[in-house]
């Protein structure tokens, strides 16, 4: 039991530190939202004093408060579930922006992550099992795909399948030329799936190689273990050895990595969302950082931090359960 209490205390302290850093870091960034916004407006014509006045009203008077007062204020709001209002998307509350983006991110990036994990583990196990045969050629080709710059893969796919062949759409999570917003209809669901294909494909292409390589190497190591030799000597069917003895044990380290990946799913996929104009959390983060939109930045980082910590915590618990060795340090 002390194991779980220790872990819990550890996560509580980590969470406090992360949230405090989340408060401090944006405030240490150079520049302020006012000058950035002004410079942007300047691009699209003259900025009249009344416009400047409006911006000052919107951005509030930060200087009046000490950092400590702001910190207390920040915690107070946080406890009430109020993450503030975005400057770039005024007057939408940050919680609403994140709530709007999360389902898309989890749906697409989450599914793509699961697909690429299952695919990578499956192929990796197979490649490890058939080591030394033609299957080994899978490894260099998938790792090469992973080493290609992600945005380049995405742009290439768009160029070939969307622009030249016209098979897939160029932007959006659904047909923005047809639908006036999300709705419950089969046509809309079909449109969402159709629009998700290319973005998901780019994520799978660029991440499957890592899982595959890790799994294959673990598989090779596992297959040389004594208990595998014993199993073979006992005359167990190869299929049973492959599934029950080798793959299950070899997948353990990958599973830990998978937990962390799942936590990071909520961070979205910055480049994918940008390239495909796909709604998601990653884009909110880019916008927030570009415009020194503190409230949005903090909201997004908070969600990511909590999700990653939660994923790690759950993995910790599961691991402690399935692998007793991690629970005691006197082994």
């Amino acid at each position, binding site marked *: 039991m002390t194991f779980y209490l220790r872990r819990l205390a550890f996560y509580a302290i980590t969470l406090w530190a992360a949230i405090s850093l989340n408060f401090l870091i944006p405030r240490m*960034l*150079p*520049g*302020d939202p006012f000058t*950035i*916004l002004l*410079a*942007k*407006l*300047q*691009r*699209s*014509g*003259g*900025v*009249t*004093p*009344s*416009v400047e006045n*409006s911006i000052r*009203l*919107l951005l*509030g*008077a*930060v200087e009046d408060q000490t950092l400590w007062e702001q910190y207390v204020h920040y915690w107070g*709001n946080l406890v009430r579930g*109020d993450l*503030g*209002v975005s400057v*770039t*998307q*005024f*007057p939408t509350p940050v919680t609403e922006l994140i709530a709007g983006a999360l389902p898309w991110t989890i749906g697409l990036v989450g599914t793509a992550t699961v697909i690429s994990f299952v695919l990578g583990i499956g192929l990796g196990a197979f490649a490890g099992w058939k080591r030394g045969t033609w299957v080994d050629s899978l490894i260099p080709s998938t790792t090469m795909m992973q080493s290609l*710059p992600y*945005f*380049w893969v995405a*742009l290439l796919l*768009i*160029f070939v399948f*969307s*622009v*030249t062949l*016209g098979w897939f759409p*160029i*932007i*959006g999570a659904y047909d*923005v*030329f047809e639908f*006036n*917003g999300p709705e419950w209809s089969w046509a809309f669901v079909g449109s969402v799936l159709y629009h998700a294909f290319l973005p998901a494909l780019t994520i799978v292409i660029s991440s499957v190689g890592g899982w595959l390589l890790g799994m294959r190497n673990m598989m090779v190591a596992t297959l040389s273990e004594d208990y595998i030799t014993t199993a073979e000597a006992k005359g167990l069917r190869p299929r049973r050895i492959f599934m029950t003895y080798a793959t299950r044990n070899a997948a353990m380290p990958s599973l830990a990595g998978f937990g962390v990946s799942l936590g990071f799913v909520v961070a979205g996929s910055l480049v994918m*969302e*940008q*390239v495909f*104009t796909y*709604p998601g959390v990653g*884009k909110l983060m880019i*916008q927030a950082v*570009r415009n020194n939109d*503190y*409230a949005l930045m903090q909201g997004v980082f908070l969600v990511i931090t909590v999700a990653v910590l939660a994923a790690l915590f759950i993995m910790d618990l599961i691991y402690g359960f399935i692998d007793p060795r991690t629970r005691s340090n006197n082994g």
Partner: protein
Amino acid sequence: MIRGKIRGRWLTAAAALTSVTLLAAGCSGASEGNEGPEDGGGSSASAEGAATERELVIWAGSQTPITANFNPYNPASVLHLANGGIYEPLFVYNKIADEPPTPMLGLESEWNADGTELTVTLREGVQWNDGEPFTADDVVYSFTNDTAKPPYLEDAVASDDATVVFSFDDPQFTNEFAILGSTLIVPEHVFAEHEKDKGEDVDGNALSGLVAWPNAEAPVGTGPYMVDTTSDAAYTAKANPTYWGGEPKVASLRYIGIDSNQSAEDLLTTGQIDWATMFVPQPDRITSSGVYGYWNTPKDPTVLYTCANADRGCEGEQTDVAVRQALNLAVDRGAIDEKAFVGLAETVSPTYALLGRDDKWIAEGMPAEAAQTADAAAAASVLEDAGYTKDADGFYGKDGAAIELTLASPDGWTDYNNAAKLIEEQAREAGLKVVATTISEAEYGDQRFSGKFELLVGGVVGTSIADPYQIYRDWFTGDFTQDVGTQLGSGEWNFSRYDDPEVNEAVAKAGQTNDEAVKKEAYAVVQEHLVEDVPFIPLVVNATQTFYNTKDYAGWPTEENPYAFPPAWENPSSGLVLGKVGGTGQ
């Protein structure tokens, strides 16, 4: 906004990697026969072409997610349609031609002799799109409500149903554009109800007043379109059947949000957007399909800001006028345009007059165009005359210390970054050590406003009317700057901290009069100083590229019929364009 769009994209770098080749055979689009230039009559905004049900798809630079906000008093997130398409000004000024403005809600305007009173005659019979009549009181309200009232305005009075008289304490000729051309007219009967609206500012503190109101539900305006639906990916508008210029011919519009320039370019090549203004390095790829018309309307100069004035706290060798003159001679503008701006930029005038539009303001004896080639020898002799000597490495300096200037540009603004690199090389040819670096956008903003920089690549906002006055006043006079270390305040753009009594006086004199001869005389003084003192080193006039579908739509502003500045994001002339565009009937 569009600036971030165009160059903030690190993706544009990636764009170079994909070669988008158009398969369609190249035949340039036969543009529709447009009527001649407007004579300023009452029918100026009437639509052209045939009625069409085809939805006009526009990208005005919005990124997703889109927040429904049609409040013109919220500059941070108001959507493009609001400024011009829903709310209209009294007149629309044409930024690219020296001609009288197009009458919108105003018909005529007249100054009194000393510039303290401006009388505007309003259009009659105009209705708000909720059926209420548009009155002179609405105009008065639009100028006198707490949020919009300009500080220089003494009073605005409706002298009768169709006349508004603006009065000022001192001559305000120079604010004519701000009053007539950029203030949007809002309905008093709707806006007055929201003056006490409550909201939250960014820190969660209470905020009240018109800025707190998103005006997201059925905004009431006089413009050609009315909001139909909104979502975080796009918003649509339908034609206003009671529009004073006649019901628009295009039944519906769709403004979409796009996050990367590359996507917008792909949507243009595949014919999915009808009107967009953005940077496209090779416009031929888009126009070769024959669907799109294309017009490049350069307007905003790109320069090197120099922190020039040691008296106001600037530090670095660039505070010596000889160093600035030498650098000015050392830059090869032709190469910068060709390599950094892909040959799409225009020649800049060292007088900051927009060539072609403001030619009459360029004083006699002033160079109309900046030199397009480098003159290293001349640069060297300027430095030698000022007492600089060349060191062993070939760099000029004084007292054994070589000149070293830091030239910064915002990371990811690729054309600026490339220009800075080129200038680094060109300066080296002339024996000047310039080090090009990139900084974050936030640092860039901070350095400009606080004056803590040596050289920055930057932009100057071109004037909205055919007169460089606003550049002279806002960018080069002592009243529009602060000491280094103090942030520039409202409307102050004098980043170089330039402060010359003769310039200040001449600009003040020009602001007091509407007499062309007096103004020209004053401008001659200003121009002489700007050319001699080079507080900014002019580079090019930046491209503004607009693409518009001429296959399905007619009535666009074009090079042949330049009735308005064409960008889809332009406020408020995009409203004028929307009122005029119609289908081709194909």
